[in-house]
């Protein structure tokens, strides 16, 4: 079946439908990871976005139950050059097409994804509609223009957990001899759209994790007597979630805190900084980030359209710890007096390189230091 992408600036791409049929809208972004489409599709941070894969062949290794990064698919639509009708990998359980159909996500293939990517690079990320229902491009362009977009919008409420839960659901018995001498720390994860691998990384370090909905109040969080707080990744504009900024501000002086991606932006706002929208964002698994303390470069996973403005931060209290070597944007910060730090990239990877996994250990080290 034919399908069309109509961009709000009037640009049209024609292709074929795969996955679900129908009509969908969102902001078009491109992701440069060559592998990991299943993790991308299930990453809640993609709520509100139509994801274009720059690698042309997608679906080759199928999908499986273990590579989900959340409970379902959150992208609004999926754009590829050629989707693979066959899936070949020993872990494969289903094809990509079956997965998209099951979760009612519209896919479009036979798109010149490089031309689309170039267009976004030059003109900036923009709103668009994918449709299998009509060939009336004029009406689709109008629909794209009037679709809600990302700016100022609260997308977190659509992806955050509805209720408090513990992870792992039932405590995993640690193999004998591996149990750490000290008790595992109680970590509360504020769920702005958390990826499972963040929970897995903390769990591997012996943490007892409680995931709370984004609107949980500071008092309620404190009443659970956690040892530390992780501010998770999540979709959209940090300006759309003032309630989260307020909660974080109240918790700042009370608990060790680690922010990831949207978590860093919310923290940045709570610390009095400003955020802004990047032209086309960072979405991929090959971004070089420099740790300013060690001067070492890590290849990081990124997925964000907004960023904390380096100049807006009060340098008396806040130290810049990481910068992006491609465009010199802020990648990490640390409070000089409080046990609080954050990064703009995804140390939990999935998909992408594992260079920054050690940051979870830093977080645990920070909790240990402040709890002793």
């Amino acid at each position, binding site marked *: 079946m034919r399908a069309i992408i109509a961009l709000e600036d009037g640009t049209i791409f024609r292709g074929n439908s795969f996955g679900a049929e129908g009509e969908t809208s969102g902001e078009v972004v491109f992701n440069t990871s060559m592998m990991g489409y299943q993790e991308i599709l299930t990453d809640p941070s993609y709520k509100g976005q139509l994801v274009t894969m720059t690698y042309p062949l997608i679906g080759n290794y199928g999908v499986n139950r273990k590579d989900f990064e959340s409970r379902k698919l959150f992208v609004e639509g999926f754009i590829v050059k050629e989707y693979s009708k066959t899936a070949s990998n020993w872990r494969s359980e289903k094809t990509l097409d079956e997965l998209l159909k099951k979760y009612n996500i519209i896919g479009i293939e036979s798109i010149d994804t490089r031309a689309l990517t170039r267009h976004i690079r030059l003109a900036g990320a923009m709103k668009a509609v994918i449709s299998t229902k009509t060939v009336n491009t004029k009406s689709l362009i109008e629909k794209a223009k009037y679709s809600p977009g990302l700016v100022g919008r609260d997308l977190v409420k659509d992806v955050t957990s509805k209720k408090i839960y513990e992870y792992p659901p039932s405590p995993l018995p640690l193999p004998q001899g591996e149990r750490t001498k000290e008790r595992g720390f109680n970590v509360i994860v504020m769920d702005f759209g958390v990826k499972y691998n963040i929970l897995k990384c903390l769990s591997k370090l012996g943490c007892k994790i409680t995931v709370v909905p984004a609107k949980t109040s500071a008092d309620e969080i404190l009443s659970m007597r956690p040892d530390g707080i992780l501010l998770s990744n999540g979709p959209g504009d940090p300006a759309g979630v003032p309630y989260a900024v307020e909660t974080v501000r109240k918790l700042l002086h009370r608990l060790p805190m680690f922010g990831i991606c949207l978590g860093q932006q919310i923290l940045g706002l709570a610390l009095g900084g400003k955020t802004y929208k990047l032209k086309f964002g960072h979405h991929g698994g090959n971004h070089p980030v420099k740790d300013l303390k060690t001067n070492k470069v890590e*290849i990081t996973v990124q997925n964000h359209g907004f960023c904390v403005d380096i100049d807006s931060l009060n340098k008396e209290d806040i130290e810049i710890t990481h910068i992006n070597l491609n465009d010199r944007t802020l990648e990490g910060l640390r409070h000089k007096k409080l046990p609080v730090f954050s990064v703009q990239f995804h140390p939990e990877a999935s998909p992408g390189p594992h260079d920054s996994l050690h940051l979870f250990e830093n977080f645990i080290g920070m909790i240990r230091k402040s709890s002793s």
Partner: protein
Amino acid sequence: MPRRTDIKKILVIGSGPIVIGQACEFDYSGTQACKVLKSEGFEVVLINSNPATIMTDPETADRTYIEPITPEIIEKIIERERPDCLLPTIGGQTALNVTTVLSDRGVLDKYGVELIGAKISAIKKAEDRKLFKEAMQRINMDLPVSGFAYDLKQSIEGVEKIGFPVIIRPSFTLGGAGSAVAYNIEEFRKMAQTALDSSMIGEILIEESIVGWKEYELEVMRDLNDNVVIICSIENFDPMGVHTGDSITVAPAQTLTDKEYQNMRDAAIKVIREIGVETGGSNIQFAINPENGRMVVIEMNPRVSRSSALASKATGFPIAKIAAKLAIGYSLDEIPNDITKKTPASFEPTIDYVVVKIPRFTFEKFPEANSALTTSMKSVGEVMSIGRTFKESLQKAIRGLEIKRHGLDREKIKDSLEEIKSKLTIPNCSRIFNIKYALQLGLTVDEVATLSKIDNWFIYQIKEIVDLENVLRKNRDKIKNSEFMKKLKQYGFSDSQIGQLANKTEKQIRALRIKSGVLPVYKSVDTCGAEFESYTPYYYSTYE
């Protein structure tokens, strides 16, 4: 870290004559490296016995010695030139081997020549199979079960423990020479003796056969700050058992999930650190059991290799050039990416196309040679193609081989199905065509994959080519449909192939295609999937 100022004169060893396993790619990498060193203000002394190279052009180095690449001659050059450093990692296996001898004889110590790129301990750890095995065990890498032997008796004892089939690998050789797969004791005796003879130190490794497993390579770069990046992943179309130089290979890897790929990436980083290659590129090979995902490390080249040349062209990342810069002290983040200019070399290229390499054989020139492909390299060259689908790249590459084919042509099949089946099981230079014949004759994708042990995904791609051919053969008027014509071109069919199928001439098809507006577009190779502007005019054609 800035460029080193404590050194002035650098000796570079080229790769010498063109032989199977070591061809002009080392001229390319060596020339790149010399240019970098010269432009950085170093005095470059070059030795290469092959005057028919670009590298030996007078302007490449400050002084060029066209002399045999032997330890004796190099010692004389060192005595006369007194270089501060020796760069051994861009002249292929020849340069590494001769460097090892120079070090063992104490020549480097005697004249105070420092090795840059890779130290002698790293070279030995990577090249000596025993040291390599021990190093891998230290970092808990899974390896095929194996044992060393120094004579025939020990070899036979070893194979009795491991069981057939086994791979016999001699230590310190060129282009995998002498290594072979043995299926029974008669074969084994002969092969083990040959291998013992061809090893420079009379040592062989007898190894659990992982023939039929999936084979991968990663190109890795490291700098003095211990930053490590992966330049390119390569998946072999032909499974384990065929020398990588004789395999059809594809970049990037096609059938790995991110979990498996990252596991491999982590392993590669651990390997380069443990072996201790301080700066520059290395090539690390892995095998994966397609049944359960077990991954083993096979080997590592602590130098610019044949695959580095492919990875450079496939990604736009100039491995040899960057390796030379790293050797003289720069770190990856200090070197700009030539293509984007604004971003640093400390990143991992992402590509938005598919690269296929096909080796070129000339068995007609070697009538004595057995044309079955094994772990010893037999091809004399290779072609590389770029396309937006695997099907397009594959057909382009076949066209590029100059073997009078226009792609995966529709041909009259001369062999019986049984003959074709047997040709699928034994790797050979025409297996790619036999896969197509088998599919044409109605074998299923699974059947072909089982016989050839080639991944289903690749066979399925060829099946899609066959299917599209069949659509056209049934209804030749379809070529008038521009959408269908576009699809043919996206599948990599040339005008002459389409003509053959539609009973028209190449010219007629070309005219028809142009009339229906199906024209190629040109896309650039930019290391970054169009994320940044690129400044290097390096393009390929495709159809969108």
